């Protein structure tokens, strides 16, 4: 358990160091620190899957912990494919929200909610992975949208990231519906979790229609994209905070 906590502490420390070097404009060093932190964070997620003594994927895929990992993976992927150094620096600024979410994960209960038989299915794992990855795209898309509004020039194509987020999130809704059907007999349940997922989906479905609307300036579209992170935060952090009180095993 102690080693387990040390790994995530070290990963978050490396993310903080990467942010520091990015501010100093040492892009290469920041990137190396980010990748090292990401590797450690991956070890943390894998060991969380084993926390109970048997491998339970639910431990790896819990949103609070998996979402910052997805964000980092996306940042690393975008940095690797980008050839321009200024552009890469802009992409790497995404470390800052990753650091914020990782710090939240640092103080979050590390144990897992004991899984019930209805929670151990490939559909649930696909749901959690794609939902957290969708959230990661929405947060990063918002971050780059805010950055482009602040700098008054479009750098990272936040629209593409948001579109990917929408696709991943839609996949999560489908896998979640199949899971709910197999587990409880209906693809939609009247409850907070399902309603809030529908809120996020509708918000970004509306976003996809904005580009065809007359009278929406680029700035207005950007503000809408930035506001998306508040919607996602409201819908997901409500559940995270609520689930903090659930009984957990392993910490």
């Amino acid at each position, binding site marked *: 358990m102690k080693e387990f906590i040390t790994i995530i502490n070290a990963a978050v420390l490396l993310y903080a160091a990467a942010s520091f070097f990015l501010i100093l404009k040492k892009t290469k060093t920041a990137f190396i620190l980010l990748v090292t932190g990401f590797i450690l964070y991956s070890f943390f997620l894998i060991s969380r899957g084993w*926390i*109970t*003594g*048997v491998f*339970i994927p639910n431990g790896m895929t819990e949103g609070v912990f998996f979402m910052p990992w997805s964000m980092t993976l996306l940042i690393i992927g975008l940095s690797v494919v980008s050839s321009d150094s200024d552009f890469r620096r802009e992409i790497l600024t995404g470390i800052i929200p990753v650091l914020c979410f990782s710090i939240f994960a640092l103080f979050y209960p590390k144990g897992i*909610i*004991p*899984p*019930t*038989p*209805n929670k*151990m*299915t490939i559909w649930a794992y696909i749901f959690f992975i794609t939902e957290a990855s969708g959230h990661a795209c929405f947060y990063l898309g918002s971050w780059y949208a805010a950055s482009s509004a602040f700098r008054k020039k479009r750098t990272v194509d936040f*629209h*593409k990231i948001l*579109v990917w987020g*929408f*696709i991943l999130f*839609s*996949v999560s*809704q*489908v896998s979640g*519906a*199949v899971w709910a*059907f*197999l*587990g*409880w*007999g*209906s*693809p*939609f*349940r*009247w*409850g*907070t*979790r399902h*309603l*809030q997922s*529908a*809120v996020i989906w*509708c*918000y970004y*479905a*509306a976003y996809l*229609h*904005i580009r*065809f*609307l*007359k009278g929406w300036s680029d700035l207005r579209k950007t503000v809408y994209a930035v506001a998306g992170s508040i*919607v996602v935060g*409201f*819908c997901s952090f*409500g559940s995270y905070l*609520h*689930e903090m009180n*659930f*009984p957990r*095993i*392993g910490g």
Partner: protein
Amino acid sequence: MKRLLEITGDLRYAFRLILASAVIMAIGSIYASIHYSFFNSMNGVPLIDWYMTKGVEKLSITWWIPLLFFSFSLLGINTFACTLNRIMSLVPRRKNLGTKRFSVLISPSVIHILFLGMLAGHFLSFTAVTQEKIPFSEGDNIYLNGIGDVKVTALRNEFFPESSMLSRRIKQTTVSISINDNGTDITKNISFLEPAVIKGTIVQLDMEKKKDNRIEKPSPADETCNKEKKFHYADTTAQVNPQLYFLLTRDPGLFILLPGFFIVIIIMGWYFYQTNFSKNNKDFMENENEIITV
């Protein structure tokens, strides 16, 4: 007629209606989080029946449900008009556009038609679903509505390994049942997440914890979506045992919803790839979309 379609299918209305639905659901989610047990009782029963009995008694927390249906109904009309309008402007140009470009450009309309199908599927599901919960034990002979006489021939509980922190917790339960169908005995196995479909009825398992022959239930104020306690038998004695149930679901909406979900995702993924990532199509598609939509 064309003018009427243009007004009804105006994209600005679509945008506002989607956002209005999102806001209504956000408000509903807050009520659902405060009154978990109350809103959980909506699941598995026809919505209209629930609303006319329980819903109207607590209008102060259920007012948003009819509003949500109204908003989605308007969105359905708007989507229908908008889609029809787009198809009418695209179809005459299909020869000039070529097969691939026409396919890409028509796919949002196909997605919207499927979306209408999904709305209808959800509506059917909400209004026509029925769920029954029938308790049983090993060896029982019981009558299940729509299925007939059933004998529970075997029941196996699988626990997590003793060496793990999850020991004494149920990992899986499998129930074997025998059904007499016109003189022939048919055996079916049912486990958690592995339902059986018998004569159009979905048969699933549910479990509660029984202590001193009484079902242990948290008070409505303490109940949450976390049900792990029901599967934890650290203190299993003759007095503390799992009580199993058959959950019988009949839902005509499922036959629209489940295949619809997958078709929508495939077409949506293909469309976004073509318009955002495929270099040959990107610019052309954007221009075309703007001409057609605006």
